[in-house]
């Protein structure tokens, strides 16, 4: 329908200007040849009509705004604004293709006309700057023309309100367009567009408007720039550039929310993120199988891209799992998804996408290897023995596996059975791995407890699929002497010097004794000095399944307590990633501190 190409009109009026003086020209662009524009000054529902609106009237057919009365100083004084020299008048205009006697502004935003009412008379020719004759003073609004529409005038270049200020001047206009465009100036000195425009060809024309002011003696040339924007309409159908089908294999990763395969649909039109339903896309499954609808969904998003400087839209479509798939699920399906550009008027506004999906069942089985682990007879409780998991466990997502230890020979003697309390197994937080650790260090010390054979059973939660494998635990080394056995098992981390550390029986110590790590760097460093039950796993910035069983096993990785001294916490806010000097911990807090002895020692060596 008819529209006004400019977002606002700005002009200046002066005391003393006579009734009938033309102020400015409003234009309307046609949607189709038959439309005849009717121009109105309109009143918005929310605002009461201003008392000054009667000072102006608009020619219903031409869209020219005239003064309805001569402007007096008293008129200026009546306005409730403080400024002594210039006061603002606000009017609204609209254009309709049919006549109305109730000029109420249409729901869509009316076009504001902002007039600066100057408390002075119109400057004479001698006081008028040539630029003022040629172009409005503060014209900020760039015209927007809808693509694919009819030619027509879109802007009055000459200032109607200055027509008679310099009667013996002749003013003419010319226009140049970059890039070249169908623009010209007609006899009424209006900027016209002579052909329909195509936004997909060019979105914005930078016009150079040249105004030639000729007097008897001189020709003055005044230039200004104007940008004419081409608005988009949904005149392009969606298309696929490349493939419209994606082959998807779902195996280990079968978790709710998992996304698979991406297909792209292109559209040369632009897509606003909100507002009118311009270029609205909808999608529908063509498959009727309810299982598909309960299991799969499509995740759609679009991004704006530029091709040769022109904006266009790329829609991405991904298959999404609406629920976890059982490990036993085993299907092959072709999913058809119809994408529809609902606003595109033509017939080809749809594109069909195909997702060829193969769902493989997951086998729960252990790799065909003999699992041998070694543990020292002197190992203390919570000493880590090793990790085990079923094949491809690293890639599992959407289902979990629980591990347990079983004694293979149920009828063995009570004494032998007692040995099997030595080792236990726990799940890693993501339930992929089984962590073997020393559960009863006393059992390890018994000479009768030689090598142990366990059965590790892995069970998938929902389907109760099970797999098992035999593991062999070699117990090596000699048991600790009776005297040492009475030695209390402490937290290695409490020790702040090598000698104390290596003489302590520490919780989780694989050799029974704590291990000292000597840091060498200065400042707050990840390679800090500390006493650990097992330098392979602690500190490693991971509070693993065994370490999290007791805060004093590896506070370096797991502590939630305050840390005193220069330090940096671990990623999740637990443990100590970096520390200045030596890191040592008690139940209520940890310390990062340069050790005095080392400090003096270091001062000598480190100069």
């Amino acid at each position: 329908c008819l529209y006004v190409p400019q977002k606002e009109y700005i002009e200046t009026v002066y005391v003393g200007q006579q009734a009938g003086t033309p102020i400015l020209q409003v234009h309307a662009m046609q949607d189709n040849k038959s439309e005849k524009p009717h121009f109105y000054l309109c009143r918005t529902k929310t605002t009461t009509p201003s008392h000054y609106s009667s000072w102006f009237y608009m020619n219903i057919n031409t869209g020219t705004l005239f003064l309805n009365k001569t402007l007096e100083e008293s008129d200026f004084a009546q306005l409730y604004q403080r400024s002594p020299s210039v006061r603002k008048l606000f009017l609204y205009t609209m254009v309709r293709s049919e006549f109305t006697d109730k000029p109420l502004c249409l729901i869509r935003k009316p076009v504001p006309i902002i007039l600066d009412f100057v408390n002075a008379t119109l400057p004479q020719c001698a006081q008028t700057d040539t630029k003022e004759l040629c172009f409005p003073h503060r014209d900020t609004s760039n015209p927007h023309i809808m693509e694919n529409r009819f030619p027509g005038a879109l802007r009055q270049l000459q200032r109607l309100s200055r027509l008679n200020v310099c009667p013996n001047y002749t003013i003419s206009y010319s226009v140049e367009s970059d890039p070249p465009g169908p623009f010209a100036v007609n006899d009424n000195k209006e900027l016209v567009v002579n052909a329909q425009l195509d936004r997909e060809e060019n979105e914005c024309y930078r016009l150079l408007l040249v105004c030639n002011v000729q007097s008897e003696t001189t020709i003055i040339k005044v230039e200004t720039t104007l940008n004419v924007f081409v608005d988009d309409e949904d005149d392009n159908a969606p298309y696929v550039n490349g493939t419209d089908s994606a082959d998807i294999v779902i195996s280990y990763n079968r978790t709710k929310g998992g996304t698979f395969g991406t297909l792209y649909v292109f559209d040369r039109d632009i897509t606003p993120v909100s507002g009118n339903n311009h270029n609205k896309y909808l999608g529908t499954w063509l498959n009727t199988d309810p299982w598909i609808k309960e299991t799969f969904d499509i995740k759609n998003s679009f991004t704006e891209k530029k091709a040769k400087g022109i904006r266009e839209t790329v829609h991405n479509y991904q298959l999404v799992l609406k629920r976890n798939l059982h490990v036993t699920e085993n299907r092959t399906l072709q999913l058809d998804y119809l994408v529809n550009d609902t606003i595109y008027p033509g017939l080809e506004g749809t594109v069909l996408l195909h997702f060829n999906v193969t769902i493989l069942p997951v086998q729960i089985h252990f790799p065909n290897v003999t699992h041998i682990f070694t543990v020292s007879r002197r190992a203390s409780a919570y000493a880590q023995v090793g990790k085990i998991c079923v094949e491809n466990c690293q890639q599992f997502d959407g289902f979990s596996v629980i591990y347990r230890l079983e004694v293979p020979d149920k009828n063995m003697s009570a004494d032998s059975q007692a040995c099997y309390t030595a080792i236990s197994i726990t799940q890693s937080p993501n339930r992929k791995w089984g962590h073997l650790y020393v559960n009863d260090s006393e059992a390890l010390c018994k000479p009768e407890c030689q090598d142990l054979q366990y059965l590790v059973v892995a069970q998938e939660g929902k389907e109760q699929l099970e797999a098992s494998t035999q593991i062999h635990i070699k117990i090596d080394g000699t048991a600790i002497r009776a005297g040492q056995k009475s030695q209390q098992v402490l937290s290695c981390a409490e020790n702040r010097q090598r000698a104390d550390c290596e003489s302590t029986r520490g919780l989780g110590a694989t050799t029974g004794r704590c291990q000292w790590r000597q840091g060498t760097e200065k400042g707050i460093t990840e390679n800090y000095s500390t006493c650990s039950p097992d330098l392979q796993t602690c500190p490693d910035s991971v509070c693993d399944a065994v370490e999290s069983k007791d805060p004093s096993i590896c506070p370096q990785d797991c502590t939630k307590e305050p840390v005193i001294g220069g330090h940096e916490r671990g990623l999740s806010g637990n443990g100590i990633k970096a520390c200045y000097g030596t890191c040592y911990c008690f139940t209520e807090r940890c310390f990062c501190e340069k050790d005095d002895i080392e400090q003096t020692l270091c001062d000598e060596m480190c100069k």
Partner: protein
Amino acid sequence: LCSVRELEVKVNELGLKYKSEETVLLRYCSGKCDKHRENYDMVMKHMMTVGFREKGRKDKVSIQPCCRPTAFEHFTVLDTTVNPSRYLNIHNVSAKNCGCV
């Protein structure tokens, strides 16, 4: 570690020159407080060794919490060495409990 220690003493062994021969259970605070240090204490240690000198300061500061009574208790005893004998109330003389402060 900082804790309450107990010692049986006679009142006249307290060093306050009260003459009562009664025996009381003196409780006092002793032991280490380094486990209760804060960043403040570490900074003070550094300032005492290096920082204050660089800034031309001579202040003395404590570089760790001290093991002190967090509540006191009194002794009430009879002094029969005077005539007539009288009861003595010795205030805040023994530690009810201790803490690193």
